[in-house]
Structures are given as structure tokens and as C-alpha cells.
């Protein structure tokens, strides 16, 4: 069970996942609490044109910058759009997502074959992550964790009581922008290594799964980190075994995501059981959140 990870590239892959676990455990709590799942998903699509432009303009080095610019632009656009009326948050997010992704597709389709680029973009290259990328992820994790530690109180106040926070003098617009930019940073930094599919999963699933067993935010963050570590380990193991033993080309990113989803599904009954012991009355929900579905 340890043996595969003594192979250098597997070890590096696991290290990268571990660092991402450290970042995404806490960040996913904010995504959960502020219902930013759609925004996270949108960010993974909107960095696409940035990646293409950056790559075309500056090669491999330019990728990161391009993605970063696109990500920050998205964060700003979303923050601005959702504060004005007439266009609902979710429609604005959807249109921004599709528009930017389409720009990326157009840019890319001018080149001859883009399917392999697309695959790399979607699934990343976890198994070819370099020590340099690991170092960059480590730096990012420090930056994000410090930023979260400093801003946690304000962000949580705004999340649970926007009116009260505004009355207390907190600038909601700047807080929202700050969080959106933080998300963009995580997406941009992680996309190269693990691809967009896994990034979205890492931002959304840890807190959602942890919520099944606890309703205390700090515990959710810690449990989320733990879940990502476990899913990373098992997923890498799974894709290693699948390709070596059975010849199935399962990407490691897919495997890790599937492990995360499995964890979520397995924990779901725990939540139902907990709710049964303390029966919760159906709360009439104000249907004004953009990410809320019917009912």
C-alpha cells in the first residue's frame, strides 16, 4: 500500500494533493457557507481563455499569468454583476462561464489539434507534477491560510448576517471580492497540476461531506482536509493499480474525484441518521439565494 508511493512521481503527486488538502479544507468551508459552488465551477471554465492566451503569448510560463488575469477578471466581474439588479446571480454566472469558455474554444480551435490540450486542462497532469510546482503550491498554501486566518471573522460575519456586518462597518463588496479572488488563486494554482474537474471537486466536496458529520466550522475544515488526504491516497492507489494491473487508463484526477464523491455518498446516511435523532422542523427557506434550487 505504500510501495507505489516510493516511486518518485507518485510521491510528488501525493505531496501536491496533501498541500492542496491543506488549502482546500478551509477554503471549501467558505464555499459551502457562502454557496459559492457555482462560482467555483465557473472559475474553472473562465480561466480557460486565460490559459490559452497566456500559453500562446508566453509559452509554459505565460500560462500561469494568463490564467491568473482571467481568474481575477472573473472574480471582479462576478462581484460587480451580482451587486446590480435585473440579472440574477446564477444567470450572470452561467453566462460569464459560457462566454469565456467559448472565447477559449475559439482561440484554441484555430490551432489544429486541441483535444489533448483540453484533456490536460480538464484533468491536469498530476503524475508529472514537478518539484517547482510543489514549491509554488506550498507558497500558495501559506498565503491562503494566512489570509483566511486574518479574514475569517469578517468573512463569517458577512456570510451569516450580511445586514449586521454592513451595519458594523464591514465593506461587503470588498469582502466578497476578496473571497472571489482567493478562489480564483486556488483555481489557477491548482489547475495546472490537477485539472479543472478535480479543482472543482476539491473546492466543493470536502466541506459538503464534512457537514454530514459535524456542524462546527473548524471541525468541517479539519475533516475536509482529512478527507482530501484520504481520497488523494486512495485515488492515486486506484489509478496506479488500474493502469498497472488492468491496463485501464484511469486518470488519477478522476480517481481522486470519485473517491471524494464516494466519501460524500457514504456520509450522507450519517447525516440522515443524525437528523432523525434530533428531528429538525422544515424551515421555510427564503428562495432568494442564487444557488438554491426548487423548494
Amino acid at each position, binding site marked *: 500500500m505504500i510501495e507505489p508511493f516510493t516511486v518518485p512521481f507518485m510521491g510528488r503527486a501525493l505531496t501536491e494533493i496533501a498541500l492542496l488538502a491543506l488549502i482546500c479544507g478551509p477554503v471549501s468551508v467558505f464555499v459551502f457557507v457562502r454557496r459559492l459552488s457555482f462560482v467555483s465551477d465557473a472559475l474553472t471554465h473562465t480561466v480557460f481563455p486565460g490559459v490559452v492566451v497566456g500559453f500562446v503569448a508566453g509559452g509554459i510560463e505565460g500560462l500561469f499569468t494568463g490564467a491568473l488575469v482571467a481568474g481575477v477578471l472573473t472574480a471582479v466581474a462576478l462581484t460587480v454583476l451580482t451587486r446590480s439588479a435585473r440579472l440574477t446571480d446564477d444567470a450572470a454566472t452561467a453566462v460569464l462561464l459560457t462566454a469565456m469558455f*467559448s472565447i477559449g474554444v475559439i482561440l484554441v*480551435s484555430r490551432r489544429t489539434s486541441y483535444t489533448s490540450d483540453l484533456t490536460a486542462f480538464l*484533468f491536469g497532469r498530476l503524475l508529472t507534477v514537478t518539484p517547482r510546482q510543489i514549491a509554488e503550491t506550498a507558497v500558495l498554501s501559506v498565503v491562503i491560510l494566512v489570509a483566511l486566518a486574518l479574514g475569517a471573522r469578517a468573512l463569517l460575519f458577512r456570510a451569516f448576517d450580511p445586514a449586521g456586518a454592513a451595519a458594523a462597518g464591514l465593506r461587503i463588496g470588498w469582502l466578497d471580492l476578496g473571497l472571489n479572488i482567493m478562489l480564483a488563486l486556488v483555481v489557477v494554482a491548482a489547475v495546472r497540476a490537477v485539472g479543472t474537474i478535480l479543482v472543482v471537486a476539491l473546492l466543493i*466536496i470536502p466541506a459538503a461531506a464534512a457537514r454530514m458529520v459535524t456542524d462546527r466550522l473548524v471541525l468541517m475544515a479539519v475533516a475536509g482536509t482529512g478527507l482530501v488526504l484520504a481520497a488523494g491516497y486512495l485515488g492515486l492507489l486506484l489509478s496506479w493499480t488500474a493502469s498497472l494491473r488492468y491496463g*485501464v487508463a484511469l486518470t488519477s484526477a478522476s480517481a481522486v474525484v470519485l473517491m471524494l464523491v464516494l466519501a460524500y455518498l457514504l456520509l450522507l446516511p450519517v447525516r440522515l441518521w443524525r437528523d432523525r435523532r434530533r428531528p429538525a422542523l422544515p424551515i421555510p427557506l427564503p428562495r432568494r439565494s442564487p444557488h438554491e434550487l426548487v*423548494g
Partner: protein
Amino acid sequence: MNWWDDVMHRAVTEVVLVGALTGLIGVQVVVRRLSFFTMALTHATFPGVVAASIIGVNLLLGGVVTGAVVALGVAALTRRRGQDAAAATGVLVSGGFALGAALVAMQSGFSRDLSSFLVGSILTVSAFDLIVTAAVLAVVALVLLLCARPLLYAGFDPVGARASGIRASGWDVVLLLTIVLVVVTVVPAVGTILALSLIVAPAAAARLWSDRLPVATVLAIAFAITSGLAGLYVSSSWNVAAGASISLAATAALVLSWGLQRLGRIARGTRVRTVPA
């Protein structure tokens, strides 16, 4: 039938049909804030389609089955808390896609299936596809027309509707399944991204122009079809990806509508309307 033999003719017909379909359902999606759900559906139908092609069953069927499972599952989960609903939808997006990708990995042709799923292949639509799209359009139009009242009441005020004897949760499911039907029909032709774009952008633009549901629906259909045709034209003239062009045309319609409305308000001297909290 030599008119149908021309690729461009079929593509144009498909664009018109798809435009009508997405415009029709789009208003419901925008008004009920179901854009994220629709996005999740496009990803969730992916494993169903792949599984169906592996098993050898009709692809649409596979998509409908997984789509329905997802729709019902999420509807059941959302009766509870809003945060869980958003998270559950997010789980479905990444889970569905990863599952589909995993299934695809078990056969060959990995990258090709993936990109056509995302981006679609409107230029390879067949006469049979057209017939299916037309049939689905008829069904959806019928459902939305006949059930307009209960859908409106249940959508606007589920509690009041229930007190009036309308089964609000049942009607929610009807709407969600209708969206599943549209997504499953449209995604193979135009891809996930474009499907979302055509469903949301024209309807959002139409909403800017009218507060009345029937008018907005007609406008949405008009915008969607126009975007489709404009996108196709640009794509064939300048040799760029068709799906992406259509998507950007739809976005342009929205941006234009927003801009014109804004100018109109400035010209009339009214302040920007904000939504009462």
C-alpha cells in the same frame, strides 16, 4: 430529399429547433434560478450517455435515466437546507464528469468523446437527430402550455399553492424532468457549454425586456434562434468553432439588451432599479 442532404441545411434546421427548445425552457430556468442545476445536469448526463454507448442502448435513453436520477436526487436533497443543495449540485457536477471520464477511459477514443461532449458537433447532425429534436420540442411546448398555471403558482408561492390544493413538489419534479429532457436532447448536438449558454443567455436577455412570462418566452425563443443563425454564419464565414460562435452571439444579445436597457433608463432619468431586499 436533397435539401436535407446538405450539411449546412441540416445544421440550420437543428439550430432553429434547438433555439426554440432552449428559449422555451430557458425562461423557466432563469425565473426559477435553476442555472446551476442545469449546468450540473449537463455534466450528470455524461456518464449515462457513455454507459449507454458501452452497453449498446440508445444514447438518449442513457442520458435521460441518469438525468432523471440526478434531478430527483437533488430535488429530494433540496427540501432541506440551501447550503446543502448548492453543495449537492456541485458534487454532481464533478462526480458526474469524473464518472463519465472514467467510463470513457475503459474504452478508447478518450479525448474525442470528451471534447464533443463539451463542445458539441452541430455540423454532424443527422436527419434522425432533427426528427428527435422536433418531437421533444413538441412535447415540451405542450407540457409548458397545458401546465402553465400549476407551474406558475408552484414556482411563485409553493406554500400558497399547497394550501390551494396544488402539489407543489410534484410540479417541481415535472419541471425538473422537462429540463432533463431538453438538456439530453440538446447536449449531443451543441455540447454542454453551448447548451447552458442557449438556455440561459437568451432568456436572461428576454427578461430584461419584459415582465410578462409569455412575452419573455417568445422573445427568448427569438433571441436563441437569431443567436444560433448568427453564430453559424460567423462560424462558416470566418472558419471558427460553430458552437462557441453561437454561444458568444447569445451572450452578445444579452450584453446588448442590458446596455440598451441601461441607456433607456438613463435617458428617461430614472434611477437604476435595485431589487427590494
